[in-house]
């Protein structure tokens, strides 16, 4: 009796009897031009950020009162800020910070999230406790929680990273828990139990591998969201310490002069937007690729 017959009518299309290997679907989805453009943009930004010191840019920190608030010119492609610092250079150095925060937050949220999610999904007793706590954390609006954490621990790269990661990780726990709960009931897990497979091996071999793909997708979205959060917090003055040229700080510094030199806000803002956009598009593409059923609907 075929289960694929059901999908023939009604809009979902045929699900092939033989599941397509994920790699070819991934490559195919990544080959559409918007996604390639996003990848390219991201590659450029990452490369620029990594090699910031080698690009022959002006020193992002050097103050030069004679040059303050100059507009876009051949010498200063993005102009200069209120202290005469070259904005382009600050933006590219800021990229480093943003990307580090993005990647760092993703890792900081994914790893504890995975561990707690697996425990919550598999052990009913732990589930109650863990999920209540997660619900509690999720009830506090994320920016507020992050701001409060930074206020309490003082601002530095690490504390900002952790502060942004804390509100993100309950969602990861919830995702993993949901996956584990549904996987636990699968016959192949029952089969492994009846074969005498010890719990730890069961989790690592049969449960966790199926969480990797959704986690990676979630990770990219966390990456993007973390960059935005850092920018917002720094913009408000409660994020990165002012000596870091993070994008949020650069924009915050440009606030006062908005009416005179709007590009001080808009250009770094554009950079931020493009980076976040690229990461989000990448995340979308990966999600579509790794879950072919969803791809037809989303």
């Amino acid at each position: 009796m075929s289960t694929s017959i059901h999908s023939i009518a009604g809009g979902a299309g045929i699900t092939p009897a033989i599941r397509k290997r994920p790699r070819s679907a991934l490559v195919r989805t990544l080959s559409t031009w918007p996604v390639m453009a996003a990848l390219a943009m991201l590659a450029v930004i990452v490369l620029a950020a990594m090699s910031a010191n080698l690009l022959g840019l002006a020193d992002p920190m050097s103050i030069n009162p004679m040059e303050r608030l100059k507009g876009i010119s051949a010498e200063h492609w993005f102009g200069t800020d209120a202290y005469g610092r070259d904005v382009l250079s600050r933006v590219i150095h800021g990229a480093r910070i943003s990307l580090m925060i993005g990647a760092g937050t993703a890792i900081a949220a994914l790893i504890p999230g995975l561990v707690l999610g697996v425990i919550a999904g598999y052990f009913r007793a732990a589930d109650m406790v863990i999920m209540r706590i997660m619900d509690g954390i999720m009830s506090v609006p994320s920016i507020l929680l992050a701001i409060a954490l930074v206020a309490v621990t003082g601002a530095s790269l690490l504390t900002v990273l952790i502060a942004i990661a804390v509100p993100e990780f309950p969602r990861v726990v919830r995702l993993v828990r949901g996956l584990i709960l549904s996987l636990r009931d699968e016959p192949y897990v029952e089969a492994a139990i009846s074969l005498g497979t010890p719990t730890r091996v069961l989790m690592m071999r049969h449960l966790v591998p199926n969480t990797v793909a959704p986690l990676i997708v979630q990770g990219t979205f966390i990456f993007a969201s973390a960059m935005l959060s850092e920018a917002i917090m720094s913009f408000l003055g409660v994020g990165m310490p002012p000596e870091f040229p993070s994008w949020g700080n650069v924009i915050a510094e440009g606030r006062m002069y908005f009416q005179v030199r709007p590009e001080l806000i808009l250009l770094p803002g554009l950079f931020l937007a493009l980076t976040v956009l690229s990461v989000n598009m990448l995340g979308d593409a990966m999600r579509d690729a790794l879950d072919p059923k969803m791809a037809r609907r989303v």
Partner: protein
Amino acid sequence: MLRYILKRILATVPVVLTVAVLVFCLLRLTPGDPALILAGDAATETQLAQIREHMGLDRSLATQFMLWGGQVLQGDLGTSLHSGTPVTAMIGSRVGPSLALALSTILLSTLIAVPLGVFSAWRRGTRADRAVMAFSVLGFSVPIFVTGYALILLFAMKLGWLPVQGYKSPSAGLVAFGTHLLLPTIALSTGFVALIARIARSSVLEVMGEDFIRTARAKGITERAVMMAHALRNAAVPIITVIGVSIALLISGVVVTESVFNLPGLGRLVVESVLARDYPLIQGLILLFSLVYIGVNLTIDVLYSVFDPRIRY
């Protein structure tokens, strides 16, 4: 039905407790002696001791929590360090702009996003659909302050149609109220329209793949009837879920928008209180926002049962 509502209310109790503990602990984690921070560096030992006793800082953490909890339940959120006025009073005086902004954003976003998402699902795969999807990714990638400033640049500075910043309460005239609120609302709404439209679309698409849609078609009713009478009703639950969840994002967004547009609301108050290290105020605000969020989600849970008869036990 009543039973369901009661159950849902009871389910929020542990969450509220967890939030309370979280908020309480957060501020107690501050490095340094709270009494010193309160009194300032020039305080004498006696003054510090007085403060400690007054604030109950010499008691155990658990007792402090009980005391604080008791106060909160009576409606006393403490006193602002900076201004000396009760926190509740400060919240009361600043709540207007935030509420106005939040409500207008939710209204505008939902009214635009849901039809947009449904339309997109209806015309899946066409250029219109792809355009909506592209806009949606853009919408939640561009940070609010960029959108905000871009809007200000265009509509306020270049075109001069709308004020650059500031807030006018409705008592100062509805037109002024409206024009001052318009740009902030639009700026804040872009992200939400993007999010909600996308979820609306995927929710409708998911429902359209269900078996009962096939049955409906087999009855020979029009595609429009299939969409309106069958798909939408069933897609409602995930859509209102995401609206509920996005309230948390709304709150974050309000904080930024108030900063960009200089609205004297609760969002700006949060930032000010953090910069001033005004702990009772920070505590009170976070608690308030969290309770609001929990309350909203409770309402959403109850709303589910209106839409889905299976959720009425």
